[in-house]
């Protein structure tokens, strides 16, 4: 289709028909401030911050929803535009609590930044404040409607990207609130705790449940042996909290930082990611050989697990019975490691650093007590760890690189792949190929599983055995895959990750997280894999020792007791 030509601030701009003035301006390097707009997800012209003058139009136009037209003349920076934007922001601020200094989003708040960028110098109006209190019912997320500016970014992510629709605008006028139906507590409804809402919230109206105080208390308790595990995706994102470029691989600094915080042992979830491959790979081969339920679907992602429990309970038998790497770690820390180190499991306190808010829910699940007690005591998100490090005055980027502790800190490149969409699939195939054929795969890089495309499919030839595999990330894509499964598509193995991009785009990751940043973090994951000497899970010597000394073999009785779990059908309503 031919392009349209328009003029923005005197510059000739070519744009595809149907694109918005905002997008056209962005392409031409002209920045129009936005608030409710979220690229490709939310363009509803609600906040009226992106106003521009369009020649011939009676009023100022919201550029995010105004399509370009041939010959259009747009001005983005006139006195009328600046005045109107400022006034609209002033009105938005009129009932926003001005608690910036004590707010979890202080210095990382879009409203605060806009106030500064638009030069807001007074707030003349005192608006009616909504009569709602914070909702702390969810183990993962806190909703604070007082800070909500009703931009609906969370609503559109929840409805379009995740197709969960746990929250939507309710009531009307000043009483409008973004909440579950009947204003029920978030902890009681079909919310999967993915935290994508928190990731896109411009303010602190939805944020993770802060559990840093519990970790500080444990660290200060001389009776506690506090160990920590770090998820694969944290090492490519935590640097962003300290001004490093997205995707910077800071594994060594992360370990050093945790040691300085006072953790007794710094372990790695990558270790149990390798272990997951052993268990899940064996489960796949067993199901293939013995005619078990196929396709087998991965079970690492707790938001995904809760999604299938709520929305597709009839497909639960397809899930791998493997616990997630985080929970395998917890169970082993309080059994295998406790035994080896000669420490009573009751004195061990397990902290997880996760890119994820749903992991908080997962750690609290009734089933997650393989060791006879809570396997994981506290889950912190990447953001919460960043907060602790700042509070401790640790100069992150100046830290030396240090190494993880033995034995639960030893891992392979396959383990780190779990941080990205397609990673579990790639890691599984590296091992499955060898287990099934007895040969090394022609290439370790399994490119069909890589990239940010929503659904990836491939047929893999294991020397005569064809494996139909698929990878989905983001729950709308997961839903699509499940529909295909219901229609009898002959898949053998499916990886599903709850969040777009996989864990690198998790709801506990640094804000902002967008597709550009997701791609950079993904690149970080692949470079971390390439840098590892061992890149296949079954070659992990610590995993091999674990089987020899403790578990016996994959899918053994002890493995089942500690590393496998069951699922709970839940209602949608």
């Amino acid at each position: 289709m031919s392009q349209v030509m328009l003029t923005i601030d005197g510059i000739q701009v070519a744009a595809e028909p149907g694109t918005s003035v905002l997008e056209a301006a962005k392409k031409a390097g002209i920045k129009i401030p936005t608030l409710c707009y979220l690229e490709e997800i939310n363009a509803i012209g609600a906040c009226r911050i992106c106003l521009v003058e369009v020649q011939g139009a009676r009023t100022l136009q919201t550029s995010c929803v105004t399509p370009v037209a041939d010959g259009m003349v747009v001005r983005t920076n006139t006195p009328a535009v600046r005045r109107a934007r400022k006034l609209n922001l002033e009105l938005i601020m009129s009932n926003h609590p001005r608690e910036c200094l004590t707010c979890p989003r202080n210095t990382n708040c879009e409203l605060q930044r806009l106030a500064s960028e638009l030069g807001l110098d007074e707030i003349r109006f005192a608006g009616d404040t909504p009569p709602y209190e914070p909702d702390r019912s969810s183990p993962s997320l806190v909703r604070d409607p007082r800070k909500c500016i009703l931009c609906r970014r969370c609503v559109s992510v929840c409805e379009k990207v995740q197709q969960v629709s746990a929250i939507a605008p309710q009531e009307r006028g000043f009483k409008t609130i973004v909440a579950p139906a009947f204003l029920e507590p978030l902890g009681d409804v079909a919310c999967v705790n993915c935290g994508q809402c928190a990731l896109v919230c411009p303010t602190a109206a939805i944020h993770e449940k802060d559990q840093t105080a519990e970790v500080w208390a444990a660290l200060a308790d001389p009776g506690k042996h506090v160990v920590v595990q770090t998820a694969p995706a944290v090492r490519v994102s935590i640097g962003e909290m300290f001004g490093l470029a997205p995707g910077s691989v800071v594994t060594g600094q992360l370990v050093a930082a945790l040691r300085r915080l006072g953790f007794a042992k710094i372990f790695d979830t990558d270790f149990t990611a390798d272990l997951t491959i052993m268990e899940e790979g064996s489960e796949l081969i067993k199901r293939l050989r013995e005619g078990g339920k196929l396709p087998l679907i991965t079970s690492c992602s707790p938001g995904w697990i809760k999604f299938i429990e709520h929305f597709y309970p009839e497909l639960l038998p397809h899930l791998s019975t493997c616990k997630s790497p985080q929970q395998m770690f917890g169970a082993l820390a309080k059994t295998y490691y406790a035994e080896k180190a000669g420490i009573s499991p009751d004195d061990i306190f397990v902290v997880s650093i996760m890119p994820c808010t749903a992991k908080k829910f997962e750690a609290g699940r009734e089933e997650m007590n393989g060791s006879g007690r809570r396997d994981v005591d506290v889950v912190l998100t990447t953001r919460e760890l960043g907060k602790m490090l700042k509070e401790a005055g640790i100069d992150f980027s100046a830290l030396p690189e240090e190494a993880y502790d033995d034995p639960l800190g030893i891992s392979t490149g396959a383990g780190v792949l779990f941080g990205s969409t397609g990673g579990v699939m790639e890691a599984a195939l590296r091992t499955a190929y060898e287990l099934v054929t007895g040969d090394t795969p022609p290439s370790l890089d399994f490119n069909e599983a890589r990239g940010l495309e929503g659904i990836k499919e491939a047929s893999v030839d294991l020397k005569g055995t064809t494996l139909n595999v698929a990878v989905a990330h983001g729950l709308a894509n997961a839903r699509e895959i499940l529909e295909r499964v219901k229609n009898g598509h002959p898949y053998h193995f499916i990886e599903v990750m709850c969040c777009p991009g996989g864990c690198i785009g998790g709801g506990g990751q640094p804000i902002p997280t967008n597709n550009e940043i997701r791609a950079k973090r993904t690149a970080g994951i692949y470079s971390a894999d390439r840098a590892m000497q061992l890149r296949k899970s079954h070659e992990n010597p610590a995993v091999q020792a674990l089987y020899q000394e403790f578990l016996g073999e994959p899918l053994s009785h002890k493995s089942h007791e500690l590393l496998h779990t069951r699922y709970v059908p839940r209602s949608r309503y």
Partner: protein
Amino acid sequence: MSNSCSCHAQLTPDHLAEVDRILESYRGQPGSLIQVLHKAQNVIGYLPREVQVKVAEKLDVPLTRVYGVVSFYSLFTTKPKGRHKIHVCAGTACYVRGANQLLNKLEEDLQVKPGDTTEDGKFSVDVVRCLGACGLGPVVTVDDDVYGRVHTGKLADILSKYDKE
């Protein structure tokens, strides 16, 4: 709350069967949400959670959206209405001529706030904006009966007419 008992008393299996019948013809049509809610409320008199869940399931609309619509439009109510519906006009003319005193008096006599229903399920009280009879203000309607120039002293008389049932 007083509502919890009376709502179950009013939601009968016949109601639910009738709602199911209505929903059957709208299966998988999210665009018909408002129409369906309207019909369901005409059957039952209000839209309890149970009915909204049915609507969400059959039309394939998230429950959050269904409740969003129900809570947005004042036409819809999630509370059961009384056997007699009292409407007090609080349009400008009625307001300045004492609609608020009438509401206070009703609250005192019937122990019910606007939007709610008495414990015995007999009366519900709602505020409306302008009934188009400003010359008669303040205006109160009970079911289809219209009363003009109402003052607090007249309320008991009016309500007593509905004592019989």
